[in-house]
C-alpha cells in the first residue's frame, strides 16, 4: 500500500550539480539514431536525417550524434544524458514531424523522467523566508511569568458588551463632561 514496495522510485525535482546557478549545461550528451535504409517504418526517421539533422547538429554542438544504418531492424533513438540515464525510444512508423517533436523532448529533458515519480512539482532549498513556525512565535511573553490557571488568560475576552457595562460607561462619560462644564 505504501511507497516502499513499488518499483517506480519517487523523488523531487533537482538540477544536477546546481545546473542553472553557474552556467547552464545542456544535459543531453549523445544521441544514437538507428534506422534502416529501405524499411518503410524508418521513413520518418530517414526524412528527419535527410532534412533536419544537420541543422540540429549545428544548433546543438554539445550533442554528439551517431548514425547507425542497420538493415532489417526497426528505427530506434537512444539518448544518453550526463547523469548516466539512457532513454531507448522506438520510432517505428512515426512521421517526420512527430520525430522532430520527440527529438526536441529528448533534447530538453534532464534524464529518464519516466523512471522517477515526482512527489512535488516544485523544489526550493529555502522553504521559509521569515523562519519556520514554532509554538513560541506568536506566544504572549506574559504567559512565561504567569501562574496558570489564571482568569486573566482563561476568561473569555470576546463577549459582546453588556447593557450594564454600557450604562456604566455612559455614566463615566457624563461625569467627565460634568467636570468639564464645572471647570
Amino acid at each position, binding site marked *: 500500500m505504501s511507497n516502499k514496495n513499488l518499483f517506480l522510485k519517487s523523488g523531487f525535482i533537482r538540477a544536477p550539480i546546481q545546473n542553472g546557478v553557474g552556467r547552464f549545461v545542456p544535459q543531453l550528451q549523445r544521441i544514437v539514431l538507428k534506422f534502416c535504409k529501405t524499411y518503410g517504418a524508418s521513413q520518418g526517421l530517414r526524412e528527419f536525417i535527410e532534412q533536419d539533422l544537420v541543422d540540429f547538429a549545428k544548433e546543438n554542438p554539445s550533442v554528439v550524434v551517431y548514425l547507425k544504418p542497420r538493415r532489417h531492424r526497426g528505427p530506434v533513438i537512444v539518448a544518453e544524458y550526463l547523469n548516466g540515464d539512457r532513454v531507448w525510444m522506438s520510432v517505428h512508423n512515426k512521421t517526420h514531424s512527430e520525430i522532430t517533436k520527440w527529438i526536441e523532448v529528448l533534447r530538453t529533458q534532464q534524464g529518464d523522467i519516466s523512471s522517477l515519480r515526482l512527489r512535488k512539482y516544485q523544489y526550493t532549498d529555502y522553504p521559509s523566508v521569515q523562519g*519556520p*513556525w*514554532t*509554538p*513560541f512565535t506568536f*506566544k504572549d511573553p506574559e*504567559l512565561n511569568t504567569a501562574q*496558570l*490557571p*489564571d482568569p486573566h*488568560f*482563561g*476568561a*473569555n*475576552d*470576546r*463577549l459582546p458588551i453588556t447593557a450594564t457595562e454600557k*450604562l*456604566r460607561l455612559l*455614566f463615566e462619560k457624563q461625569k467627565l463632561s460634568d467636570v468639564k462644564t464645572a471647570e
Partner: protein
Amino acid sequence: MSACKRVQQWATFARTWHIFDCKWQDPYQSAGVIKKYLMGMHKPIYHPLNDCGDVVVCINSREIALRGEDWRRRAYFHHTGYPGGASWTLAWELHNKDPTMIIRKAVYRAMQGNLQRRHTMERLFIYPGEDIPEDVLQNVTNQIRQLRLVPTRLDHIPEEEVKNYPKVMDYPEDYILK
C-alpha cells in the same frame, strides 16, 4: 542533519501543554475547541499523519454546566458486549459516579471517528477539581480561553465596589419591600 536544523525541527514540533478551566462551561461546546488543540489543528504545520497534537489538561470538570434539562434527561448508553449488557445512565448519575466522564465523552464525540481518535484522547487529562499533580502543572504553558461567561457572585465582589457602583435608580429610604 546539522545541529541547527535538528533543534529547529525539535522546536517546531514541540508539544505544548494547555490548561482549560471547565467551570460553568458547556462540555459539548468546549469539546469543539479542546479537540482542535488535541489534534493540532491550531498549528500551521498540521497534517493528520504528522502527530502534531498538543496536551490539554481540563480542571474543575465537576463544575461543568449542561444545558437546559440535560442533567435530568440526557442518557449515556453503554453495552458490555454480553447479552443483557445494555445500560442507559442519566447524566447526573454518571457525573456522580465519575465527574470526568461527561467531558471525556463529549471530546471523544467531537473528534473524527478515525483510528487516530483513541491515540489523541490519551493526550487529554481531566481533573474533577483544582488539584492537579505538581509535575503536570509545571508542564502547562498556555491557557485556553473559556467560551461562556462565568458570572461573579455578588458576595464575591468587594464591598467598596458594590457601594460605589453607579445606580440608575434606588428605593427611597422609608420604602418597605414586600
